[in-house]
């Protein structure tokens, strides 16, 4: 276990390095001159020169890359051109809102999705199964920002049950503010998790040990939850990581719909204002999210299925 953990952690380091390299290449080489991108076509040669000096863009590329990595490691990623606040400060302010939204949405999605999947699997090809299938077909097709806008129109604008925008102050108020945005993401999530649970559970329920459990007279509930669902959890764990990342990407648009603070809103706002340092910071944060969540999912995997420890 300890050894596997170490190997996995050590593997994350080159991954992070490679991610930073890709971000760097994308930011510095692909779109041409970042100075022009940031200041616009109308900028004078002098302004461009000053910008390059300030951002360290006159140094050779390898030097710029080292500076960039060093900046990420020491949490010093420059200042926003618009607000003059430090990028790290902006990220730290917005991060809790995004994490809060993603986690609450995941929790709601799992709470609804797993029982839906079990319901569909235990009533295969009957009415509940068809209902869950239709729900997941629509859940796969409806864009989350559209669903969010509809919920906003109905429950916030017309019924006044929920606030129209903002993140809230204090725990209770924040949960009140996060409810509708999280519900939006959770509905899409529940469709995905429901379908995954159904498939996974159906496969497990056709196994011999399920027949044995039934033959020895175990109650149906015990067969489903104790013998079935526990073993169906493993593929669900992989799905969970993907799902968490999908929820995170969905949070970008949802933060825009509900006008909530968050990393997505920070990044999109920075793009509109061509705030170079903040764009870079936002992209790095999302990249780190992906690396860390994948790492956590691998670790969760060995908790759920101890066989993996032995085999590695």
């Amino acid at each position: 276990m300890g050894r596997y953990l170490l190997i996995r952690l050590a593997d994350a380091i080159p991954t992070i390095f490679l991610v930073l390299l890709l971000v760097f290449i994308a930011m510095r080489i692909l779109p041409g001159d970042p100075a022009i991108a940031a200041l616009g076509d109308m900028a004078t040669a002098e302004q461009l020169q000053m910008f390059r000096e300030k951002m360290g863009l006159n140094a050779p590329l390898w030097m710029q890359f080292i500076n960039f990595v060093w900046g990420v490691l020491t949490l010093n990623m420059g200042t926003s051109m618009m607000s003059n606040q430090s990028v790290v400060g902006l990220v730290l302010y917005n991060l809790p809102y995004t994490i809060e939204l993603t986690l609450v949405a995941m929790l709601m999605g799992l709470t609804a999705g797993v029982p839906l999947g079990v319901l569909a699997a235990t009533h295969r090809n009957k009415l509940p199964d068809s209902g869950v299938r239709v729900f997941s077909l629509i859940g796969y097709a409806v864009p989350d920002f559209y669903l969010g806008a509809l919920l906003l129109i109905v429950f916030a604008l017309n019924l006044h049950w929920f606030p129209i925008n903002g993140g809230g102050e204090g725990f209770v108020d924040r949960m009140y503010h996060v409810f509708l945005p999280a519900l939006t993401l959770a509905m899409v999530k529940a469709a995905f998790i429901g379908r995954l649970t159904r498939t996974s559970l159906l496969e497990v329920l056709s196994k011999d040990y399920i027949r044995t459990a039934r033959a020895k007279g175990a109650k149906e509930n015990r067969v489903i939850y104790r013998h079935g669902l526990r073993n169906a959890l493993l593929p669900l764990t992989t799905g969970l990581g993907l799902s968490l990342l999908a929820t995170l990407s969905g949070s970008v648009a949802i933060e825009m719909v509900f006008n909530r603070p968050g990393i997505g809103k920070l990044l999109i706002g920075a793009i509109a204002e061509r705030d170079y340092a903040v764009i870079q910071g936002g992209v790095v944060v999302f990249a780190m999210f992906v690396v860390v969540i994948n790492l956590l999912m691998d670790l969760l995997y060995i908790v759920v299925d101890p066989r993996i420890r032995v085999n590695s």
Partner: protein
Amino acid sequence: MSIIADPVPELVERGPGRFDFLRRALFGRPATIVAVGIIAAFVVIAALAPILAPYDPLTQSMLRINKPPSWQNWLGTDQFGRDVLSRMIYGSRNSLLFGLISPFLAAIFGTTLGVIAGYFGGIIDRVISRVVDLLLAFPELLLAIMIAAVLGGGFWNVIVVITVAFIPGFARVARAQTLSVKQDPYVEAAIAIGVRTPVIIFRHIVPNIMAPIIVLMMLWVASAIRLEASLSFLGIGTQAPNPSWGNIIRDGLNNLFGSPWPIIGAGAAITLVVLAFNLIGDAVRDALDPSTVQ
């Protein structure tokens, strides 16, 4: 009477072609036929947009701002007095165009990368596979947002963004398929008699790995349409005033108190088209690999 019997009919009849599964999939289930019909309808709408749209999608009018649906404007007007239905009809062009072009381009580039990695192996394979594995860890939407953050919006950038977001998936499938096809006797035979490498790749390998690539392409048309809508909604896709379903919802959200109809209409269109493409994609996948049917 000839003593030689007529040839056995089964032997004369053409066997199933490599792509017969497509036809079977598209017209096999009632739901899929409906889906094909929906797509066909939207393709006609997009193609005939100038004839079908009752108004110009860009013409503004201060006299009819935020009108609810009526006989003149079936879906009402937006905050600039533009006809919402006309904007949606023109917007369908962007959605379908990106939805079809990007998976196609991604299939070309991704397959090329995957085949190169799988065929040559060694250090080339290790480098390509490492980057592809890394990119596969990112959800397509997040990858697209990150690339669009750097590139900005606009027609060609959106194509680049969605294409790049899809390339890793194609590369992985193409690499795995190439590794398996490479073991087949006809490839070994071709190598043994000294056929040039490009000929082996394009004549013997690529045609034999096309089926799963085509399935992937069909599965991702829906994703591409969703991606374009999401990017346009975020303001980093199709740029205003050029209409797209995503930025119609964006405009609608800025005008929430004016009229909810642009949001309702454009969102319903995205949902319907994505649903139809999903149904078709699933059917094609099931036809190729019956083991996925539950």
